[in-house]
């Protein structure tokens, strides 16, 4: 029903739907009452390791971790 020209303001600013949706969810989680809030914030933790491959060999991996590894 919205015409092709009428994009939401966040898309006009260069944000994708996934980023928008995750941002909204993050803001909602920040507003929860205490025991629910800490459980919810653990759900946002991300841990991944990504490496580019050149000539069939993996390069140095990029590791992003919120789990607080020692």
């Amino acid at each position: 029903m919205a015409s092709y020209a009428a994009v939401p303001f966040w898309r006009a600013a260069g944000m994708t739907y996934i980023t928008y949706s995750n941002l909204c969810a993050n803001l909602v989680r920040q507003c929860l009452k205490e025991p629910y809030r800490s459980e919810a914030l653990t759900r946002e933790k991300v841990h991944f390791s990504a490496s580019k491959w050149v000539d069939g060999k993996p390069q140095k991996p990029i590791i992003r971790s919120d789990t607080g590894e020692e």
Partner: protein
Amino acid sequence: MFRQASKFLLARSSAATMRWRCPFSTDLPVETAVDSKFVDAWKQSIPNLEPPKTPSAYMKPRPPTPSTIPSKLTVNLALPYNSLVSAKEVDMIIVPATTGQMGVLPGHVATIAELKPGVLSVHDGNEVTKYFLSSGFAFVHANSVADIIAVEATPLDQIDQTLVQKGLAEFTQKLSSASSDEEKAEAQIGVDVHSALNAALTG
């Protein structure tokens, strides 16, 4: 993250729609799609093995739309990590679509609606259950099954009023001082979400 939601939905909607499946003599059974060209080519080159099934061969055919409007709406509210409402039979739900609050009754036309941060209220007889959704989609199917998927949804009593007002003040201030497009968009999103939370708590 929405991949997980569909696992809950498929199990729930097939269980719910079993009830509505009344076979009529005039209804043709829906054939599960089989690609005959592929199967023939396979049989020519590899006659000894069974041709592999494609994903569409495993899909259940769409449940038929019942000819009389069902008396209850079946609702599923699924999150990536949990299913808050599954196959609950209710009278009406009100979803916070981007185009405004949308009421869904049994027999509603099939719709896909994008949701904005807001309150989903589930009405069953005299009891109303409300959930605050962060954003997501609502799919209403022709057989009176409504699937709502959201990234984050909470019952209203788990929301802290003081944090909401603090957040609203903070983002309103960020909005007025924002310079680049991205900052403005983020601040605007913050203001939208917090005002919706505020309205949910006070309304």
